[in-house]
């Protein structure tokens, strides 16, 4: 699932990744814009997703990711793999990893790297 949490409306990257993942054979759900963390977790639960990719360009990636990780934990969904993409400066990588983010793919990341990373984590399982 590719999700756009928070208020940021820049969805070019999120949609491009959806296209790339579909092309790579994944089943992909796109949440659309302006999603709250609650919306995202609820949708992820309902659709039983294996991977959540957050796309954030406003700079609010730390508070938003923290909120999502807490909510996943509260719902006993710690096995969901969380990726973060967008305008993510290197100085925040450690903080994001410490929150439990499995992979960070800032603007300019290759489709192939993202696809390979997901495959390595889920071993061919999809969503």
């Amino acid at each position, binding site marked *: 699932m590719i999700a756009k949490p928070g*208020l940021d*409306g820049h*969805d070019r990257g999120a949609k*491009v990744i959806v*296209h790339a993942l579909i092309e790579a054979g994944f089943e992909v759900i796109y949440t659309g814009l302006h999603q709250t963390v609650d919306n995202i977790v609820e949708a992820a639960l309902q659709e039983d997703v294996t991977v959540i990719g957050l796309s954030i360009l*406003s700079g*609010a990636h730390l508070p938003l990711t923290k909120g999502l990780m807490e909510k996943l934990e509260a719902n006993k969904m710690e096995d969901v793999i969380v990726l973060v993409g967008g*305008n993510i*400066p290197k100085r925040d990588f450690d903080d994001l990893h410490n929150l439990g983010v499995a992979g960070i793919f800032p603007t*300019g990341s290759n489709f192939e790297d993202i696809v390979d990373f997901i495959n390595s984590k889920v071993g061919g399982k999809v969503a």
Partner: protein
Amino acid sequence: MVKLPRPPIKLKDVVLESGIEVKPVYGPEDVMDRNYERDVGNPGEFPFTRGIHQYMYRARPFTMRQYSGFATASDTNKRFKYLISQGQTGLNVAFDLPTQLGLDSDDPRAFGEVGRVGMAIDSLKDMEEAFRDIPIDRISVSLTINSMASVMMAMYFVIAEKRGVPLGDLRGTAQNDILKEFVGRGTWIYPVGPSIRLVTDTIEFCARNVPMYYPVSVCGYHIRESGANPVQEIGYAYAIAKAYIDDVLKRGLDPDKFIARLSFNFDIHGNFFEQIAKFRAARGLWARIVRDDYGCENPRAQKMKMIAGGGGGGLTIEQPENNIVRGAYYALISALSGTQTMALCSYDEAYTIPTKKAALLSLRTMQILVEEMGLADTVDPLAGSYYVESLTGEFERRIITCMKDVDDMGGIVKAISEGYIQREVSRQAYETERKIQSGEIIKVGVNKYRVEEEDRAVEYHDYDREKTDEQIGRLREVRAERDNAMVKEKLDILRKKASGDENLMPYIIEAVKAYATVGEIADVFREVFGEFREPVRF
């Protein structure tokens, strides 16, 4: 002796993003079909291909208007004054996302976003602070906001009134182009219909009360930034502009007058000459659309006025200093294209909102062009170039085709409401990204001349979390100090009027004057209009 022909050189095919094939050499035969008087015209004369004024920058250089705003109104006020002191000639106001989406700073949904990508405005009190000691009767201010534009314009008009600046003399621009927000940028709130109604209300209100104001700046910029090619950038923007015009015509306004107050915001990145041809073609086409579709004879209505700035989409995370060079070329393109106003994305924008240093560098880039390099000396210096004229003609034909395609989708409003334009644009964004990753499109420093372990010494604009508390504190003060019964009364009237079809601007102004907050006013509209449900199509 038989002279052997030279072995043919195999030249690489060049196809522009717009699909136009570029020949290695252009000559007189390529401009045979272009008639100077009919297709080009003198500067300041129909169809204005060469520029909308007779002497262009020689008489008055383009306005320099860097996008700025962050944290609180008082922080932004300081930045405005700094930029003005450095020679900036207009202001371009950045609002934070909660303000753009009609949320008060203490709304849980605003958490982490207050003052982040622009300044936080909760009520008239903040707006007054933002423009404290700024001569709004002399410096033109552009409000970069869309679904909440009517409210910000209302606040701005109230400030003018309080300072004794007659609305009849007030100049400025609001972005206020909600239709493009559904395609790119994404700060929509209400469904498409009521969103257009708010735009129409502001156009009508300004036509009747603030005649020097530009109530809408129709943006091809964000459509292009979302992935559209340069032809679609213009074609979709014109289709959107026509949708607003058609709606305003129902209010019985004179198109010769109100169309003259519409302006445009376009993007610059990609191929150098393609951009210049795009703008020249766009000017000619708009003049024809306004004359032929709306019967306007007023040259002011026929003139396509624009802000054309360097697009963030062309800048790269990799080797950020290269963006300084790109910015300078974008500024050159903009000046060669006859823009009225210029704003450049700063070199650090792939990382952060611009630091003071980066914003100043962008301003200096524009000043160097005008004051050192002679870009203001003569009008449309590329006119008559075989290549540029041929490309301009081809561009115009392609924009017309693009607009016909939109008509075939059932018109722009339907095509956006149902997500067809968004799908077209996102598919193209994917194709472009795929081509960059495969090396088909070259980005220097990204897929060529890449430095793997580079030092990206970009200084970040620091987000100060404590500013959120400061902002929320001010908001609570406003709520405590104002006449709450009065606020309720004004909001109740607004709610009632929103359900009808009267122009809402006078009632928004009343609510703003009573210090109703951005969130309270947006909530009234959410209640009456509902919220947009995004169509998801891939």
